[in-house]
């Protein structure tokens, strides 16, 4: 916490002490300490799922913390609901706006803050107040327009006005630029600076490093439910922040022999993808993976890794436009019109990034899940029927090989811990001996013991002469497992490194979109990427 507070304000706007919150067995926040001085813009940055939104929801009274203390202006407070948060002077602008679309701006602003049963006086008072706020902070919106007729940027202004109308001194914005055009984002930042200069305190939740550098005074980094660092923005860099976000310390050591790469297994050439909303997610990806090697894809989440895995796995999101070429074992692989089944038949195994939504059916038993995606394989089918006995026996064998606990194939997937769920998925995909294994976030939410086990299996598959494409936001995992590392940023491969010839700082720069090897830093940052306003909604 070295340079976090420039001037030691006796009563910071917000002080959190040891906040912890668990949902079931998932620890979302662990012992969070945070100090936000009055009249500053404070950035909170972290990966999806790092716990940022949970922390802010605690501050806004949506969740009660299991432990810890909240101080507002030096006074200890409890915030049981959002009404108390508003009374404590906290306003929140959500990522997904909470506006009534067929109400006017004015009606939305007073909604829930009416003075009495009669609307007219409230509306008149709100109109005067809006005029004042508009003049003061450049928050220009026509009070009589319907929300549905406003642009997204203007809708966001209405959200800010709502908070200010409720006399918020502390404004929390959750991923505010995710939906804005670059010009709108610039305008928002002007507004925020104006608010700060008037003495308001602003917390900005984001996973975009550039925004942090551009507008915040201080920044705190969350990683895996902990607050890992706080810095004065002027004293840090995007590379350092990227490194902090994904974890710097190499905790993991995987014993592996040097790779003996063989023939190319997968070739990706000029792969481009534009999603249904017209945003280009992949901007020309070229990759080659050889037999007997692990190619690690590093990068901050939301830079196209998910789209790459989905395309290779045969199920690009609906409405996406694709171009480029895929080659598997020298044979062209269809880019579209394929599906997961065809990809499996072609010899591609896939451990998806989100095992709970994609990799498993949580209500299905372990044995039903252990064949998921391979359920029409010859050994599991008996005409139109499934050979349940064969599936059960196969699952029991996999559970034994992978030491899944409890070793009960009849339990539903949701009854297993995250690590054991992942073992079921990895067992299913690895035991098929695929020529190419796609594996996304193999150890997210997985306990240490299972991490080691899964890593060993990935390396064993490589040593058996198979190709592995590993996508992970955990830099230490990438460093420990990969034979080659490609860094993705904004839908491109920013650069390729060998793990023994790079540092986490070097990779951090690449992940932030800066190539340290390049003489012209602007060259690595095309104008389109300067405002990465299209990163997917990152709720955290």
């Amino acid at each position: 916490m070295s340079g976090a507070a420039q001037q030691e304000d006796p009563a910071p706007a917000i002080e959190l002490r040891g906040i912890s919150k668990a949902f079931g067995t998932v620890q979302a926040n662990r012992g969070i300490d945070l100090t936000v001085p009055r009249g500053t813009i404070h950035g909170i940055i972290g990966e999806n799922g790092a716990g940022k939104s949970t922390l802010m929801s605690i501050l806004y009274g949506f969740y009660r913390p299991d432990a810890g203390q909240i101080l507002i202006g030096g006074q200890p407070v409890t915030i049981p609901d959002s009404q108390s948060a508003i009374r404590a002077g906290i306003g929140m602008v959500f990522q997904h706006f909470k506006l009534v679309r067929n109400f006017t701006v004015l009606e939305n602003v007073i909604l829930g803050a009416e003075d009495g049963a009669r609307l007219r006086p409230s509306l008149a008072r709100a109109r005067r107040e809006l005029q004042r706020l508009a003049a003061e902070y450049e928050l220009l919106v026509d009070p009589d327009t319907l929300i549905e007729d406003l642009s997204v940027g203007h809708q966001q202004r209405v959200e800010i006005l709502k908070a200010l109308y409720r006399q918020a001194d502390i404004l929390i914005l959750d991923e505010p630029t995710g939906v804005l055009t670059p010009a709108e984002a610039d305008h928002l930042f002007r507004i925020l600076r104006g608010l700060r200069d008037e003495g308001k305190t602003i917390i900005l939740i984001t996973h975009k490093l550039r925004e942090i550098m551009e507008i915040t005074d201080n920044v705190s980094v969350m990683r895996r439910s902990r607050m890992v660092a706080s810095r004065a923005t002027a004293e840090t860099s995007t590379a350092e922040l990227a490194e902090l976000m994904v974890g710097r310390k190499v905790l993991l050591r995987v014993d592996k022999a040097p790779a003996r790469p063989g023939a190319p297994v997968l070739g990706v050439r000029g792969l481009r993808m534009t999603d249904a909303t017209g945003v280009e997610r992949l901007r020309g990806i070229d990759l080659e993976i050889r037999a007997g090697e692990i190619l690690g894809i590093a990068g901050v989440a939301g830079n196209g890794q998910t789209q790459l895995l989905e395309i290779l796995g045969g199920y690009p999101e609906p409405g996406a436009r694709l171009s480029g070429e895929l080659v598997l074992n020298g044979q062209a692989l269809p880019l579209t019109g394929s599906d997961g089944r065809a990809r499996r038949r072609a010899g591609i195994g896939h451990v998806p990034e989100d095992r709970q939504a994609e990799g498993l059916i949580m209500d299905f038993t372990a044995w039903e899940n252990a064949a998921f995606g391979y359920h029409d394989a010859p050994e599991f089918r008996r005409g139109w029927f499934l050979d349940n006995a064969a599936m059960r026996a196969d699952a029991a064998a996999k559970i034994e090989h992978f030491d899944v606990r409890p070793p009960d194939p009849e339990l539903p997937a949701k009854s297993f811990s995250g690590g054991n769920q992942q073992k079921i998925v990895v067992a299913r995909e690895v035991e098929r001996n695929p020529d190419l294994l796609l594996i996304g976030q193999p150890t997210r939410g997985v306990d240490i013991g299972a991490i080691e086990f899964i890593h060993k299996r990935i390396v064993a598959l490589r040593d058996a002469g198979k190709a592995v494409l590993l996508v992970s936001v955990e830099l230490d995992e990438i460093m420990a497992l990969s034979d080659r590392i490609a860094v993705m940023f904004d839908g491109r491969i920013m650069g390729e490194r060998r793990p023994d010839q790079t540092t986490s700082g070097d990779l951090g720069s690449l992940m932030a979109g800066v190539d340290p090897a390049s003489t012209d830093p602007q060259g690595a940052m095309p104008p389109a990427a300067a405002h990465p306003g299209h990163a997917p909604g990152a709720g955290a």
Partner: protein
Amino acid sequence: MERMPKWADLILTPLISLLLAFGLSALVILAIGESPAEALKVMVTGSLGSSYGWGYTLYYTTNFIFTGLAVAIAYHAGLFNIGGEGQAAMGGLGVTLVILALPWPHWTLALPAAMAGAALFGALWALIPAWLQARRGSHIVITTIMFNFIAAAILNYLLVNVMRPVGSMDPASASFPAATHLPRLSDLALAFGITWGKNTPANITFLIALAACFAVWLLIWRSRIGYEIRAFGRSEPAALYAGISPSRIIVATMLISGALAGLMAINNVMGGGERLILNAPEGAGFIGIAVALMGRNHPLGVILAALLFGFLYQGGGQLALWTSIPRELIVVIQALVILLTGALDNMVRMPLERAFAALSRNRG
């Protein structure tokens, strides 16, 4: 969290809900100045007290098994088929066209053909909403509801203008030839020397309905398509990951669902009415929703729930016949059963879960 034992989940919860529904119904009957005890007696004796009552109860039960299965299988794919009524009506058209098209020498020949006709027409009537959902994203709840009205209108037109025999004043098809009449359950009983259920419409379709329950069980829990249907119903992203095509599953499921609803016409048109009349399904398509809901979308549960609603339906008719309680009241009772076993399920379930949790804590 401590889970309830399975028997409590499957039997105790619906039973308590049911008792609550009956309790509330008793209050309603009291409020209109009648005796709940008397009403219950009339309902039970009228539907279960004689083989005559049972004959009718089983006849209605058969209808509800088919429509209940139709809703249940769609539910496993995450689809809500509200169109059972229209699909059953179209099934009736299929049955009638098949039977009147050829001079069938014997019912054993007519039955498989009529079943094919019923299933085909029901399935095709479900196919259009399924296709609209799979290809155009039109919500299946809305389209199946609308298709109920379209089916009713088509049948209305056909029965009044096309299928009505010359000289008849009745908007109904010609009566089916005697050779195509299905054996009644009373005939079967008589073959064993038992006098049972004389003059009731219960017929061998009841046995077909039980066979259909077994077939649906096999389909959902033993077949590959059933596995894919359940996977898709639980998680569409996972289905996509596994290479299960959503549109294929939506269309296949709705074809099966529509066929099951259509098969109901074997009971009410071929077995019961022996001709096609206006509004032949009499709301059984909608009761199927409640049956599936209460039966937890399991074929065995569907049989039990269909039996309950068969009892309510027949008992309600008796109530109107023998007491001054209006027939509409039975709709109130049915509504209360649906409300408490379906919509307000958690009202009973959650306190029960807490009670079981407390019990196991005390023991432990």
